[in-house]
């Protein structure tokens, strides 16, 4: 079925509001006591049977956090958050097990979300047993994080044969403590910012990936985050290390039930790319955005950063941000290695009362480092959308290049688009370029589509997808279709 038509069907199938992922799973959970203090930090660490050094690391982060203040510089408004009025640990009672033993309720939940946790039979085909062409699609290895814990990771064995480690970060702490100790917090230190410090103190799970030297990861790796429990924050931590000459493509997706309360999601993602390594990190962020009046929705306060440590290393961030009541997120690249490359492709949609303050930082340190920023912001309803980006070129980065393009699209007359670029160039031989446009969906474009038989919403979807094309084409195939659907759903009711 064509993507756009499929999108329309999806929209029509949505009966309760536009958010079809808003259901809740009834499953027996274990909570830490509400609130946040040193004991909670110790509780989480003990639950995870962590070594002393990691507990100390968490406690140090907690001490730093207590002295910090929430950042207020972003162009977003929300009432003060009571950090004592939330659970910092919520996990299904049964605990993580092997794929075959996962609670059927959880499997059902992920199936409902369209996430296949079961390794598909055609994997056998890959290894030489009767592969039919219809099954020739690449499998995706998935780590499923449910509230505070990873509940399952698929294709571990297959990946293990290449020496690839793909597991939950809690598991990696047990099985590969030397890697965790070597890399954790080296890209985003504990005291980096308020939310990173909070995350460092109470992170509960997330994914860990290590790609050995010279290995090209044979399948997409993916983590699917799900917030389910009430009054719970999700604090996941992801660490990806691409050793010399390796390549990996990683995707993350996320959803949450519809609730009137706001829930906090404060994640940290650290990427490390060594010589000639390449990491592609794609996000389709679809946390519950709240209702049309702005009630409920996730506060998505996330720190994502990559270090291109090696020469000729490359990191590419692609994000499609359609969900969350508030998004505060700046996936960044620190380009240390000579000739390293950073890329940021972003689509951010704000509809109804959603607010997004998002962008990137490209820090050029190595010689001849290059970065590309393509940002597409779409504001509808009463949404507020800010691109905030920093391009910093150090005196050492001779011959560095940056190209930035920020386009904003306005739908309706009650929304806002803002572009706040910072450029700090301290190198004579470096070159930075910035282009920005703001436009509306023109009446003649809509009429043209409608005269050809499309409904208003179909027309908007088509035009918006066209506007975002440069970014959407960076997504892996399966995600591109999903993202197009999301764009359409996110904009439902934004016109007319």
């Amino acid at each position, binding site marked *: 079925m064509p993507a756009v038509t499929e999108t329309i069907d999806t929209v029509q199938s949505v009966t309760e509001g536009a958010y079809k992922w808003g259901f809740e799973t009834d499953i027996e959970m274990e909570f830490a006591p509400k609130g946040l203090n040193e004991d909670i930090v110790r509780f989480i660490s003990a639950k995870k049977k962590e070594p002393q050094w990691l507990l100390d690391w968490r406690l140090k982060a907690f001490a730093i956090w207590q002295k910090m203040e929430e950042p207020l510089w972003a162009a977003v408004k929300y009432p003060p958050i009571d950090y004592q009025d939330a659970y910092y640990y919520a996990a299904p009672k049964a605990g993580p097990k092997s794929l075959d033993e996962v609670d059927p309720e959880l499997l059902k939940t992920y199936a409902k979300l369209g996430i296949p946790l079961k390794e598909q039979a055609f994997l056998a085909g890959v290894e030489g047993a009767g592969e039919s062409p219809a099954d020739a699609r690449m499998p995706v290895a998935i780590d499923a994080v449910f509230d505070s814990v990873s509940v399952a990771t698929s294709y571990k064995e297959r990946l293990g044969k290449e020496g690839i480690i793909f597991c939950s970060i809690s598991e990696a702490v047990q099985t590969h403590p030397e890697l965790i100790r070597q890399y954790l917090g080296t890209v985003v230190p504990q005291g980096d910012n308020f939310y990173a410090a909070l995350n460092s103190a109470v992170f509960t799970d997330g994914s860990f990936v290590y790609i050995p030297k010279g290995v090209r990861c044979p399948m997409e790796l993916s983590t699917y985050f799900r917030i389910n429990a009430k009054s719970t924050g999700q604090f996941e931590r992801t660490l990806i290390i691409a050793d010399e000459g390796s390549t990996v493509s990683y995707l993350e997706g996320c959803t949450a039930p519809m609730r009137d309360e706001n829930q906090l999601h404060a994640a940290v993602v650290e990427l490390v790319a060594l010589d000639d390594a390449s990491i592609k990190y794609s996000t389709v962020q679809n946390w519950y955005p709240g209702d049309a009046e702005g009630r409920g929705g996730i506060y998505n306060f996330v720190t994502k950063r990559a270090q291109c440590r090696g020469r000729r290393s490359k990191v590419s961030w692609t994000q499609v941000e359609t969900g969350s009541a508030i998004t505060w997120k700046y996936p960044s690249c620190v380009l240390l290695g000579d000739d390293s490359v950073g890329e940021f492709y972003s689509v951010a949609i704000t509809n109804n009362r959603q607010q997004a303050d998002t962008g990137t930082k490209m820090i050029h340190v190595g010689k001849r480092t290059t970065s590309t920023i393509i940002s597409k912001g779409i504001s509808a309803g009463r949404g507020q959308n800010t691109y905030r980006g920093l391009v910093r070129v150090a005196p050492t980065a001779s011959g560095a290049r940056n190209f930035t393009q920020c386009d904003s699209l306005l739908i309706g007359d009650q929304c806002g688009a803002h572009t706040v670029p910072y450029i700090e160039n301290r190198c004579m031989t470096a070159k930075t370029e910035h282009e920005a446009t703001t436009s509306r969906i023109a*009446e003649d474009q809509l*009429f043209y589509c409608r*005269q*050809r*038989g499309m409904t208003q919403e179909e027309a908007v979807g*088509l035009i918006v997808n066209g506007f975002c094309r440069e970014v959407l084409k960076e997504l892996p195939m399966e995600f591109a279709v999903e993202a197009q659907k999301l764009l359409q759903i996110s904009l439902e009711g934004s016109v007319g």
Partner: protein
Amino acid sequence: MLRIEGLTAEVEGKQILKGIDLEVPAGEIHAIMGPNGSGKSTLSYVLSGREGYEITGGSVTFDGRDLLAMEPEERAATGLFLAFQYPVELPGVGNALFLRTALNAVRRARGEPELDAMQFLKVARERLKALQIQEDMLKRGVNVGFSGGEKKRNEVLQMALLQPRMAILDETDSGLDIDALKIVSDGVNAQRGPGFSALVITHYQRLLDYIVPDRVHVLMGGRIVQSGGPELAKQLEETGYASVQAAA
């Protein structure tokens, strides 16, 4: 098929159409000629349902149904097609996707099964070939970077795909060289038949050498001031609109 009675319409408070009466029976092609500012484009937008045009009186029926009560997309679904004087650019939207979305929207409204990408491509290729249009037109963004002639050919391609029962061609000949004019005309003539009508709006007689109309109407000052057979177009070419005005 199309019946317009006493139609009056305003744009921004200014009356442009001052009482149009016109009937286009099924299977006929009618030409509407007139000088600039006579209301030709307004008539095409009013018929296709564009916003910003206020209908102050009269009626329009299409197969007995009240056309003016329908949304633009409903009019398209019942088989009304407007070939735009200035086709609109849609940056980033692939022409193939646009055409398929439009075709499927119309097919859905008609209760016909939708076409998947492969089925669509097959149909599109046939039409392209018949119209002598290069296939790479499908791969480009909708009208983006198209020459004037390419834009008009793209309009005719859309018409050939959507198979309307009534096409309004709004100055489709403007900005066309003779080769493009021929391709566009051939496209329209190929549709000709008992189930297809057209309203060809033009300033010049030239197009009517290629698309020979059953009737010609002269629109001036928001009214149809003269009607006749194809010979009326030739006569206008020789004597100009001023003579009609003097006579009217």
